[in-house]
């Protein structure tokens, strides 16, 4: 059997994503069954044209499910600016050298060959909600009956980081890609006794446990490889926002003396030349600065008048994810404002609720009145142990929001190696459900 590490080298060479054989090998390496292609039915009687903007966790999933549930009468065009998707999930493990960015690439070949999704590589600039069409930066126009917008997030620019040169010196690496690799290289260039400074924006930001997980994996690597080093965590929130039990233990026990956690910190400005952050608790200098700026929905949202929630996100009806301000336009994943976390696992499920709703709307049926969604997240605490967090959400007709069903929401009692293995299985299965 191919070991994960060896396989990842091979997959990396493939670059633009995995073939069926590639998926089988990856799945075998993680101890799960390979994703199975399901058919696209020809006889559902449902007809309609859907354009999807953004082929991330939400957009890839909605495109696939519109076809396997809606059938060949549902014409689906997925417009994505990149030629392959780089998974954010697991990208913190690039920072400690246990994964590579090339192993986290997922191509769109399966969506086309297995499910008949029409892929367009391009950047959507404008949406015409009256004429029901979208126009790419290149000028090409695509008409739709219903539009799904799934652009993920964009980042605010911290004062002092206005230039590309300053941004390159202070990567956030909160969108997996070249910045992730750059940050890994900065970490390995740290001296013994060095200081890694990271910041966490106020809620809502994507992947609530993610920044704490990052602090842990970086601390774990530094402890073994750059003795005497420190990780300073500057949190804009009043306390740890997710997996409080696991991360309190990680900061105070597992990585005690390495991680220094500071809640309620405001960043005033950044000096990229002197590698210093000016904050509400004073000036802080680091060998590496990894500041995660506040987020908002991908820019196509605000640029097209869809940012009705705080000027940043889109308010939606969670029975269909249709935008409150724009009939016919559905917004899923990180870009919408809901009571659910901004996370990939739940983006996948929001996509299924949205696909089901669009197909019902096409066939003149009522929406499912009681959808569930669920969030599941494993967080590495060290090289080989992880914790987890999960919640099962149900529609609450009184508040018209998704609410966690109380007994189903919680975190792992303790970090463990078993959790770490389960994490690899979960990740491969999840990416298979969205991209294979």
């Amino acid at each position, binding site marked *: 059997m191919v070991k994960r590490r060896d396989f990842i080298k091979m997959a990396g060479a493939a670059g633009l994503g995995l073939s069926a054989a590639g998926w089988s090998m990856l799945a075998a390496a993680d101890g*799960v069954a390979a*994703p199975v292609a399901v058919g696209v039915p020809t006889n559902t*009687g449902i007809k309609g044209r859907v354009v999807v903007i953004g082929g991330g966790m939400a957009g890839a999933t909605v495109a696939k*499910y519109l076809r396997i549930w809606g059938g060949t009468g549902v014409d689906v065009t997925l417009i994505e600016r990149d030629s392959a998707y780089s998974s954010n999930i697991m990208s913190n493990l690039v920072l400690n050298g246990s994964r590579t960015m090339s192993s986290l690439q997922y191509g769109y070949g399966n969506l086309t060959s297995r499910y008949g999704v029409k892929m367009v590589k391009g950047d959507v600039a404008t949406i015409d909600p009256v004429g029901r069409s979208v126009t790419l930066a290149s000028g090409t126009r695509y008409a739709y009956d219903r539009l799904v917008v799934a652009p993920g997030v964009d980042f605010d620019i911290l004062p002092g980081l206005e230039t590309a040169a300053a941004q390159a010196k202070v990567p956030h690496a909160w969108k997996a890609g070249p910045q992730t690799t750059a940050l890994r290289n900065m970490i390995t260039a740290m001296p013994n006794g060095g200081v890694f400074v990271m910041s966490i924006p106020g809620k809502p930001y994507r992947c609530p446990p993610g920044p704490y997980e990052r602090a842990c994996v970086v601390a774990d690597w530094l402890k073994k490889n750059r003795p005497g080093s420190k990780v300073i965590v500057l949190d804009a929130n009043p306390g740890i926002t997710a997996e409080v039990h696991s991360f309190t233990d990680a900061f105070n026990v597992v990585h005690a003396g390495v991680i220094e956690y500071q809640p309620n910190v405001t960043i005033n400005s950044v000096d990229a030349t002197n590698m210093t952050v000016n904050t509400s608790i004073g000036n802080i200098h680091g060998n590496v600065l990894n500041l995660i700026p506040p987020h908002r929905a991908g820019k196509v949202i605000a640029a097209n008048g869809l940012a009705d929630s705080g000027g940043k996100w889109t308010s939606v009806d969670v029975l269909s994810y249709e935008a409150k301000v724009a009939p016919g336009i559905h917004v899923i994943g990180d870009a919408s404002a809901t009571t659910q976390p901004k996370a990939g696992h739940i983006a996948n499920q929001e996509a299924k609720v949205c696909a089901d709703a669009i197909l019902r709307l096409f066939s003149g049926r009522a929406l499912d009145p009681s959808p569930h969604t669920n969030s599941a997240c494993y967080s590495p605490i060290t090289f080989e142990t992880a914790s987890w967090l999960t919640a099962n959400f149900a529609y609450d007709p009184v508040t018209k929001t998704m609410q966690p069903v109380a*007994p189903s929401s*919680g975190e*792992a009692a303790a970090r463990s190696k078993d959790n770490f293995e389960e994490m690899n299985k979960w990740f491969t299965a999840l990416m298979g459900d969205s991209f294979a």
Partner: protein
Amino acid sequence: MNQSRIIRGLVLALAAAPAFAQTTPPSGRLLASNCFQCHGTNGKGGVETLAGKSASEIVKELKEMQGKATPKMMDMHARGYTDAEIALIANYFAAQR
């Protein structure tokens, strides 16, 4: 009343439901799709294939998980469903081939 009897009743009632027009989404499909992230699309692949398992077995396992003293992730997740929802999910997977 005995809970498992209610579930069994529901399972039978749903199994006997007449075929709907094809534009009708199969009952339980959207709910069961919450399982696909880990158990594969349509319950095929992933950590454990659920497609084609008997409905009563799925119901039994989910009920056991709901009662686990130190819940693992799936045990916790199972607690988010009512008995009626569990029956819908179980029937959906039992009908997958």
